[in-house]
C-alpha cells in the first residue's frame, strides 16, 4: 500500500477504494459510524452517488451503506490503489 495523504471520504470517487484513518465526527454520529464499521484500518469501496449527487453508496465490512456528504466529510481515509 502506498502511503498517501489523508483525505475526507467525500473526496473519493465511485470505484475508488480507501482505508479508514479516523472518524472526526463527534457525539452521536461518531458512535454510530464506529458501530457501522468505520474503525481504523477498515477497507471500503465507493460504489456510486445517488442520482442527485448525494448521498453516496459504499461497501464496508462486506455490506452496502449510504452516507450523506455531511457524514462522509468527517471520515478521514487513505486512497488505496
Amino acid at each position, binding site marked *: 500500500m502506498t502511503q498517501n495523504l489523508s483525505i475526507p471520504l467525500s473526496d473519493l470517487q465511485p470505484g475508488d477504494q480507501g482505508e479508514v484513518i479516523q472518524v472526526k465526527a463527534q457525539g452521536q454520529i461518531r*458512535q*454510530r459510524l464506529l458501530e*457501522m*464499521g468505520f474503525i481504523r484500518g477498515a477497507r471500503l469501496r465507493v460504489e456510486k452517488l445517488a442520482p*442527485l449527487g448525494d448521498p453516496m453508496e459504499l461497501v464496508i*465490512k462486506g455490506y452496502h451503506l449510504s452516507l450523506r456528504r455531511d*457524514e462522509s466529510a468527517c471520515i478521514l481515509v487513505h486512497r488505496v490503489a
Partner: protein
Amino acid sequence: MSLTIALAGNPNCGKTTLFNALTGSRHHVGNWPGVTVERRSGAFEQDGLTLEVVDLPGTYSLAARSEDERVAAQFLASPEVDLVLNVLDASNLERNLYLSTQLLELGKPVAFVLNMVDDAESRGVHIDVAALETLLGGPVIPTVGNRAQGIPELKALLAVLARGESTRCRRITVDYGHDIEGELAKLETEICRDEKLEEAMPPRWLALQLLENNAEAKRRVAESHASEAISQQLTKSFAFLEPHLGADGATLIAERRYGFAHGLVKEVATAPDEGRTPTARLDAVLTHRWLGIPIFVGILALVYSVSFILGKIPQDWIAEGFKALSDFAGAHLPAGELTSLLVDGVIPGVSAVIVFVPVIMILMGCIAFLEDTGYMARAAFIMDRLMHVMGLHGKSFIPLIMGSGCNVPAIQAARTIESRQDRLITILVTPLVSCSARLQVYIVIAGTFFTPFKAALAIIAMHFLGLGLAVLMGRILRSALFAGPSSPFVMELPPYRLPVLKATLIHMWEKGSVFLTRAGTTIFAGATLIWFLSRYPGIANQEWTAQYQEQRQAVAALKLPGAEEEDRLRALQLAHESRIVNTSLAARLGQKASPLLRPILDPEHKRAEAWKDVIALTAGFVAKEIVVSTMAVIHQASDEPKAGERLSPLQVSLRDNSGLSPLTALAFMVFTLIYTPCLGTVAMIRREAGSWGWAGFTIAYGLVLGWGLAWVTVVAGRALGFA
C-alpha cells in the same frame, strides 16, 4: 411454567420472519411504554412449556441513543428476560456480530440463530456452525427463516435452554486487551459500591458504556450515590487510555469488538465469491444515475394507483353500504332523537372509521412489500438529497406523496423513518398535503365561482400550496423544535430479498386492526360529538317532528307517481334537517364565531350567511368531504346536479344567496386546505406521535396558518383589484 425469550438482531436480519415462524399467527402488537416503537410478542408451546417471545426493534447496537436502541437495551437488561435469542444474518456475519459482542456482556444466556444460510451459501460463504458455537459460547441453529427451515430444531433447543438443562451456554466476552481490561476492572470496583447500580445491569457492561462515553450510562451513574467515585475513576481511565493507546474509549472499544468479530468470521466462514451479486446487478438499474428517478416515480405511481384507485372500490362499497343502511333506517324508523342518533350519528360515525380500512391495508401492504424487498432504502437513497434540502429525510418522501390520497395511512407510513425527529416532523407536516376528501370541497366551490378552466387552475394551485407549506413547515419545525445537528443519515442498503407473502399479509392485518381499535374510538367519539352539536336542541323539538310527519303524510296522501313523490319527500327531509341544523348549538356557535372568520370570508361585512360556513367547516372536522353534505343541509339545496345542468342546486344557492365572491371563495378553499386535519388524521397523529399534545399542536398551527393564509389571499386579492 412460562419463560420469556427476547429476539434481538440487526435490522434486515430476518428477525420478524423468524418471529412469525416461531409464534404462528398468535401475536400481540402494541407500543412499548412511553414511546411509539412497536412491541410485538407472541408465544408457542414446546414440550409442555409456554415460551413467550418478544420481538425487539432491529438495532445495530445497544448504545441506547435512538428510541429503538433504548427500548431494546432496557428490555434486555430487565429481569423479565430469561433468554436472549440473537438472530444473525449469515450473509453479513461480521457486522451482525458487533451487536452480539454487546449481548454477550448482559450476563444472560444467549443462543444464536444463523439465519438466511441459503443467501450466504449462494454467495459462496460456508459457515462452520460447530466452530461458531465454540467461539460464541452458545448454541447456534442455522435456519432459513422464510422457508421455516430449522424452526423445529430451534423450538426444541429453546425449550431445553429454558428448562436450564443445557450446558451449552458458556460465558464468553470480548477481550479488550490488557490496558482496557485493567481500567474496566477499576471502574467495576467503583460501580459495585452502589448495590442498586450493580443489580440493574452487570457492572462490566456499565463500565464499558462509560468508557464509550455513553450519555445514558452517565445519566444512570449521576443518579447513584457512588457517582463521584465513579466519575473520578472514569476521568483517570480516559487520561490513561487516550495517550497510551492513541484513541478515545469509544474508538478503542469498537475496534476490539470488530477485531473479535473479524477474527471469528475468518475462523468459521469462507470468503465470499468475487463478482457481482444479484443485488448489485439490480442496483445497477434501480439506483442508476438516469434511470433511478424515473423507475422510482413509476413504482410510486403504481403504489398510489393500487392504494387509492383500487382501494377506492371497496371504500365506495362500504360508504354506499352504510349510506343504504342509514337511508333504510331513516325511512323505516319514526323520526326523532334516537333515529337521528342512529342515522346521523352512529352509522356515519362507524362508516367514517371503517371506510379507511381498505386503503390503509392496501397502502401498508405495498409499503411493507417495498420495505421487505429492500427497495424502500433505495427510494430513500434516491430522494434524500431533495428531502434533505427541505429539512426532511429521504424516507419522508413516500408519506408526503401518499398524503395526497389520504393523510391517515400516510401518517402511518411514516413508521418506516427510524429517526424520531424526522418521523415526528413528517407526521406533523403531512396534514398540509391536500387529500382527496378536500378535493371534493374544492370541486364544489371552484365549480361554483370560477370558469371550468380557472377552477382547474385553482384546484391545482391548492395542491401545490399544500406541498409547499409542508416543506416550509418542515424547515420551520426542524429549526424550532430540534435545534442542533439533524440526525445522521447512515442507512444500510440491504440485499434485495423476496418478501414472504404471509408476513406482508400479517402486517396488513395488524395495521388495519390497530387503526380500528386505537384510532376508531377517537373518530367515533368525535363524530358523535359533532352530531350532538349540529342536531340539538332542534332534534328534540316534538312539535317540529310532528309537523314533519304530517307533511310527509300529506305528500303520501297525494298518491303522486313514484319519482315525484320521492323528490317531494326528499325536499321535505332537507327542509326539516335544515331547520334543525340552522338552529342547533353549532349554528349558535357559528354565529358567535363568525366574526373571527369575517376578515377572511366576509371582508366587506355584507354576508348575512357567513355563520353557515362555520357550521360546515366545524362538521368538516369529522371528515373533509362532510363539508359539502353539511352545506347541502344548511343551504337546503341538494348537492347532486339535476340531469343536464352544470351546477347542482347547492352550487346555485351558494352563487346566488351565500354572498361569497370569487375571492372569498378562494380564501374558503385555502382555509379548507389548512385549517385542521380531519378526525381520522388527528387520531392517527395522536397514535403515531405518541401524545395528544402533538395532535393538539397540529390542529392549532393549522387554524392559525389557515386563517393567516386565507387572510393574505383576501388582502392581496383586493389589492390586486379582485373582488
